[in-house]
């Protein structure tokens, strides 16, 4: 019954999305106000309709009605409630529905808040968002229906169907197969929704850009109206990526956080173009530059979002992220191709109207720094795209599939990341419009000199890899220059306004939220860079089979195997846990408990490391294996990841910076109050 209602609501939604598209186009072309209102209502209705459908699916997931295919596949009796809810996005069907729901929700917010203000653009925004919604609803309804049930035919064959076939009886499994054990983690609650919020969030600025192109509006209104959307989408996408890294670090037990797997890259690519867009957006805003470029970037980002959604679901790649293989691949390709060609066609059609009268004058100006920032992000994106599609390309041209591994991305994109750090380092000290190498040199030498302390310290501490030392210097340069510029500005303001420094700091920051928000993000990224340099260049590892009481040494630490326990848990796991003492200079620092959880229902083990984290380094200890009979000996593997903690600290700093940049300014608040 609940499933039938849920399904019925989906059918209504696909109809309303189609109505919204048709009435919007008709309403605009015939200038009929009533039609536009109809379109708005139809578009608005998708959100409550899908919310109810989602509620129906969650009810089923919680109820443990395993006759429903999706409930059977993603939940089991032993799973806790929070994971049963998270199972909503734990499988193909549910996650597609969740995607649709987010899209309808974002459209809803735009239509509620901006209908009067952007009345000329919004009908086209409805068209774009609802065509996308329609496409995804087709997938949900005809390919990946979350409300199917198991039936047993008269010949004993089990089939899945929406309605009861003739002579068939409902199957009643007693327990579900449950979510893949790797997904049974708190990360499951936050990582996928954040990523989806980021993905879907970029559709709104894209829809505005297309609306502006269709209407022939050449001003910056589409961009300014969606500035905060873009930043919010970027924030969620960044959070999704970082949380995914943390999850991998915490449960996958290979000592790392990022493995350049195709699905990771497919979420990273829209982040790269989205980041480029955030920067070039500033240029259009402040200087009227890059108008074509911005439209092109947001089109590219949208297509990459759809491409990323597709890659995860196609089963084309082997990955921890991959869903089971599916028939929806060709549909996705057609959709991406059509959206790409139509949007690009529109851009070319409006090309001449978009040109700006401004030229970049100086090679060392801030404008050219932004230009190079964009080129670098695009270059990194191109490398990622090439790596992902290389097997397909090579098969097309040579008949042999050739793949590339993580080393390809690291050696091809690494130097470009270093150049980005360099740009980040000098950009706060460049001036708009005109600036010469000499002027830049005059301001930059002081903080640059201070920043040398970091690489010198690294060399004294034993770093001999010159690439790593240069990378450390670049990250240090960003930190020093940004802080130097900040402190200098505070000092100037304090002197000019006779304010105490803390007041100067507050007014400066709150009056220039986007500027300082951006700098704080840069600081965070530089700190993350230190973490990446630490783990990539200075990771050490060791492994040994230890008897009780024996220990192994790793970079000055003593890791002692003290105890072993094995037991079944009520939620269907067999947990093998060792007690490990971490000591340095005969002084115990921490006791950690690496373990292996074996899930009986899915016959799969999950390795969970024991972790000791400090600002200097992480000690990451894994239980590899143990002797089944005596359980006296266990194989232990340990990693030391220097500076790793700065990666997570940096990401928190970057989030804080983004929030600062997002915070509405005072004038804006006043405006809305007056309007009310």
């Amino acid at each position, binding site marked *: 019954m609940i499933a039938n209602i849920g399904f019925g609501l989906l059918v209504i939604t696909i109809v309303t999305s189609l109505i919204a598209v048709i009435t919007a186009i008709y309403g605009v072309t015939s200038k009929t106000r009533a039609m536009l209102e109809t379109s708005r209502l139809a578009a608005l209705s998708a959100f409550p309709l899908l919310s109810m459908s989602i509620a129906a699916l969650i009810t089923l997931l919680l109820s443990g009605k395993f006759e429903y295919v999706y409930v*059977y596949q993603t939940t089991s009796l032993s799973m806790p409630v929070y994971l049963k809810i998270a199972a909503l996005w734990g499988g193909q069907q549910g996650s597609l529905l969740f995607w649709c729901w987010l899209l309808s929700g974002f459209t809803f917010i735009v239509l509620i808040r901006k209908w009067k203000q952007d009345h000329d653009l919004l009908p086209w925004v409805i068209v774009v968002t609802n065509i996308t919604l329609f496409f995804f609803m087709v997938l949900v309804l005809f390919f990946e229906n979350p409300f199917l049930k198991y039936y047993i035919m008269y010949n*004993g064959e089990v089939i899945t169907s929406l309605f009861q076939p003739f002579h068939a009886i409902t199957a009643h*499994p007693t327990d579900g197969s449950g979510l893949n054990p790797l997904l049974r983690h708190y990360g499951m609650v936050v990582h996928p929704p954040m990523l989806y919020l980021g993905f879907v969030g970029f559709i709104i600025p894209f829809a505005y850009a297309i609306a502006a192109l269709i209407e022939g509006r050449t001003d910056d209104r589409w961009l300014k109206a969606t500035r905060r959307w873009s930043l919010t989408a970027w924030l969620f996408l960044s959070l999704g990526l970082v949380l995914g890294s943390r999850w991998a670090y915490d449960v996958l037990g*290979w000592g790392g956080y990022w493995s350049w797997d195709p699905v990771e890259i497919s979420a990273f690519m829209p982040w790269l173009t989205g980041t480029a867009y955030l920067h070039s957006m500033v240029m259009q805003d402040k200087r009227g530059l890059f108008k074509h470029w911005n439209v092109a970037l947001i089109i590219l980002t949208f297509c990459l979002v759809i491409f990323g959604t597709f890659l995860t679901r196609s089963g084309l790649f*082997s990955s921890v992220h991959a869903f089971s293989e599916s028939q929806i691949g060709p549909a996705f390709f057609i959709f991406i191709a059509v959206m790409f060609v139509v949007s690009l066609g529109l851009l070319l059609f409006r090309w001449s109207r978009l040109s700006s009268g401004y030229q970049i004058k100086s090679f060392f100006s801030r404008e050219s720094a932004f230009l190079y920032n964009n080129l670098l992000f695009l270059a990194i994106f191109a490398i990622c795209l090439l790596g992902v599609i290389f097997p397909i390309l090579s098969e097309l041209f040579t008949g042999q*599939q050739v793949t590339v591994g993580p080393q390809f991305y690291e050696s091809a994109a690494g*130097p470009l990341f270093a150049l980005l750090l360099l740009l980040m380092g000098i950009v706060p000290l460049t001036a708009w419009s005109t600036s010469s190498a000499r002027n830049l040199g005059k301001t930059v030498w002081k903080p640059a000199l201070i920043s040398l302390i970091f690489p010198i310290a690294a060399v004294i501490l034993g770093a001999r890899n010159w690439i790593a030392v240069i990378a450390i210097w670049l990250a240090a340069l960003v930190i020093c220059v940004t802080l130097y510029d900040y402190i200098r500005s505070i000092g100037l303001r304090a002197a000019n306004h006779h304010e105490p420094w803390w007041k100067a700091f507050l007014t400066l920051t709150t009056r220039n939220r986007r500027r300082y928000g951006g700098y704080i993000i840069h600081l965070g990224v530089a700190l993350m860079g230190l973490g990446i340099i630490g783990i990539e260049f200075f990771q050490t590892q060791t492994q040994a089979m230890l008897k009780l009481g024996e220990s192994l040494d790793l970079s000055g630490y003593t890791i002692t195997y003290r105890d072993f326990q094995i037991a079944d848990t009520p939620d269907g796991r067999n947990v093998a846990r060792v007690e490990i003492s971490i000591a340095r200079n005969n002084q115990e620092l921490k006791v950690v408990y690496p373990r292996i959880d074996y899930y009986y229902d899915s*016959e799969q083990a999950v390795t969970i490391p024991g972790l000791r984290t400090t600002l200097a380094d992480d000690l990451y200890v894994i239980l590899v294996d143990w002797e089944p009979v005596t359980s006296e000996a266990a*194989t232990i593997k340990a990693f030391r990841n220097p500076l790793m903690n700065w990666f997570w600290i940096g990401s928190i700093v970057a989030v804080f910076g983004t929030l600062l940049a997002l915070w509405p300014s005072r004038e804006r608040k006043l405006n809305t109050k007056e309007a009310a």
Partner: protein
Amino acid sequence: MSNNTTLPQNRSKENPAFKINKFVIGGVLLLAAVVVLVVTSLKGNAQYYLTVDELLASPPGQYSNVRVSGVVLGDTIEYDAQHQVLKFTIANIPGDNAVIEEMGGIAQVLHNASTDPSASRLQIEYHDVKPDLLKNEAQAIVTGQLGVDGVFYAEELLLKCPSKYEEGLPEQSQNSR
């Protein structure tokens, strides 16, 4: 006199071609750097992706660094935890996605290949921690090289487990009425 001093300024301010050139040169340099980076990185890190059949059919020594995909035979898994030496055997599965679809999907293909005694096999040796996902009928993707002894020495091991949903149900559903 005044002409002499203003001329160079005019040139740099009002001749956009001069200005653009500098950026074009910068852009071309960057592009060239990226191309060089990509090409050099590809040279060292690209691996042919072969099936077991293709690898065994190739003349010895043709591929120094290669990636092979096959299905894990559960009975063959041996792990020496003390020295962290993992040995197992994989059986050939088709490499073409279209063929796999035709044969009833990857889960079916893996199941058939693991029970087919005539499928060609390859012994794998891998020196590292035994991955959690290594089990019977998992799809293994190994990167490394084929030794003269016919054993494939893997440097990297990726595993992919097909969803068991399709076959998983009948047992359970038949147990309960």
